[in-house]
């Protein structure tokens, strides 16, 4: 298993990032936009990437680290290949989202924001994704699963995970 914690950015990723920095360098207040794009490129924002942004935008590292850790969308750790994001908005919560979250934690044996040892799955308890008509709802990568039967959580969760375990 590769050690996911070691930074392994490619030159292509770096040149993409440099392009974005170049474009945004003179735009006022562009740091958050650059961080969003950098996270798109690398999947997360390790210190190495923050350092490149710091140099490129001429913003001190303390400020960048401050911003990255302030906003929940920015992640210092890589996520799993399949990120299971369970909506914890009120509409989903009153319809059993807590039970679903617990079941995923148990099945994958990781905590919220954790990644499985093989790097395949991670769990996220997300803020309302606004699909309250489908409550309780969750996403795995870009796939959406809604109207999950709160009285049949273990079977529903097993069914969802099966779609990814064999891939």
């Amino acid at each position, binding site marked *: 298993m590769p050690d996911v914690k070691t930074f392994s950015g490619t030159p292509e990723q770096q040149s993409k990032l440099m392009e974005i920095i170049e474009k945004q360098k003179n735009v*006022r*207040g*562009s*740091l*958050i*936009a650059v*961080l*969003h794009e950098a996270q798109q490129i690398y999947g997360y924002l390790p210190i190495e990437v923050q350092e490149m942004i710091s140099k490129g935008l001429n913003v001190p590292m303390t*400020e960048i680290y*401050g*911003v990255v850790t*302030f*906003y*929940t*969308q*920015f992640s210092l750790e890589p996520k799993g290949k399949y990120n299971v994001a369970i909506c*914890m*908005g*009120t*509409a*989903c*919560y*009153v*319809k059993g989202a807590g*039970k679903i979250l*617990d079941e995923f934690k*148990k099945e994958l044996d990781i905590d919220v924001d954790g990644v499985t040892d093989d790097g395949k799955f991670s769990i996220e308890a*997300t*803020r*309302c*994704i*606004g*699909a*309250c*008509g*489908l*409550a309780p*709802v969750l996403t795995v990568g870009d796939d*959406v699963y*809604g109207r999950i039967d709160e*009285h*049949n*959580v*273990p079977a529903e969760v097993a069914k969802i995970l099966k779609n990814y375990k064999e891939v």
Partner: protein
Amino acid sequence: MKSLAELQVIRDKHAGLVSLRIDENDQLHGKCDSTSIARKHILVCGGTGCVASGCKKIVDELHKQLKSHKLDKEIDVVVVGCFGLCAVGPIMIVYPEGSFYSLVEPEYIQEIVEEHLVKGHPVKKYLYDESIKGDVDIPLNETPFYKKQLRVALRNCGLIDPECIEEYIAFDGYAALGKAVTEMKPQDVIDIIKDSGLRGRGGAGFSTGTKWQFAANVESDQKYVLCNADEGDPGAFMDRSILEGDPHTIIEAMALAGYAVGANQGYVYIRAEYPIAVERLQIAIDQALEFGLLGNNIFDSGFDFHLEVRLGAGAFVCGEETALITSIEGKRGEPRSRPPFPAVRGLFGKPTILNNVETYANIPVIINKGAEWFKTIGTDGSRGTKVFALGGKIKNIGLVEVPMGITLREIVEEIGGNVAPGKTFKAAQTGGPSGGCIPTELADTPIDFESLIEIGSMMGSGGLIVMDDDSCMVDIAKFFLEFTVDESCGKCVPCRIGTKRMLEILDKITEGKGTLEDIETLKVLSANIKSTSLCGLGQTAPNPVLSTLRYFEDEYLAHVNDHKCPAGVCKSLLKYVIDEDKCVGCGICKRGCPTNAIKGEPKTTHYIDQELCTKCGICIDMCPPKFGAIKIV
């Protein structure tokens, strides 16, 4: 750059094209029908809810089937914004007849195309069940969900293609901006908004016109107009739906605001969690630029207005105006104390006005139809309508827009279709983490800004979560406090530490370890946090606790004195037991138990070892309903 006359040409041409979607009572009908090419329009909801339930497959299948039946030239498929009834998505409507198909599956499309579109007989079994009673078709606006609604802010959602500027123009789009910059003085615009009585829809309900006046009165070389689309309340999706369904209305309203206060730069601060809204808004901005409705010298009036999108990054506190401004500046989104108010010193230190999406959505229509018209809707203190995201334990989950003054009961029982059969409507939560729970006894209170505050809740941005007897009010209070603790930015002590202490107490209570003194401490802490926090987040954070204590103190006492959770939610206080009289020893639950806590020989009564039981509830779901032998005590 388009002139007013050119805009009118587009309007006339496309009014004909879209007139199919309007019933005969509407003024648009019959105008320029000759330019209409398609004989039918199929509108498919493309809001986030319906995208998640698979509307893209429906659209693909429609195109395929229409093509193979050679109907693709005469029937248009249009992806539109939210119809509101998310509970039965994916949704599509066929115009001009207005047939409303709900819970559509791709497999239904072939039959619908062959029967309805080729032969002309709507496929009744796939129609929305409320829109058909026996053999009688019920017009959509007569169905219980739509009957009491009045769409002002959502007027174009579900009616126009949000990615087509011509359709927006056809429904009077950019007419208000054209009128304002060519015929009106900035002060005239402010006066109309002031006179209309419009109040901010983001939560606090401050007079929009007064806010604009403050900014207009300040002399400055540069001013800014901001739109708060950082809709953070869990369970609220009004603003997202407006941006997804009618993005041009926000652009037009912001340009109007810019003209009124003397600003030529605007920013829309929008949640990154809303990718569809971000994409459609960007498309709309590009189109407006191309048409010269944004940019320099709009309508040859000398007025310039530029608009940019700024993405949030997941921080609830950024919905607070000063925090939002700091976040647009690219910094940690922490609030600061006021005054100075943003109207005096805001973004980059310049005078700034900030309004919420729904507030802006009201602006063009007020300019077009006048303040007097707007004042006929709603109550004396709260003019107009309010959009609510109806969710939770209710049948018709979705987006509703109602005139102010309607009662909560009308929304829940009539529009919402009530809670599930056999359950009781216990409370509704409005205002999200800043609001409170309204018990069913107060459900006849009219919904307006003042009445809601009087009963311990608030209008908030419009989340309305319905709860039934399966919801534990202590648990709900804890849920919101967990949210606030997580989202507190940490700048001021009362909010950072105070809410955490409150959460610890609630944890204690839900575990059955609370004391009566704890309840008193909660009240004292609440009062202190409310009066000493820096920003709105902290000042309102205790509201969910205070309102549940006010109306459901008996539930708190049941947790504290009797160590019982009456709703059966708080795990530590529950015990799963097998009813000896009902258990036949089939062993199904025993096989399903993940911790082997269920004991007993086949064909004899089983029992649950409480030491091993983790209270996961699997056994209760597995026990065949004909026995129903496992219960929670």
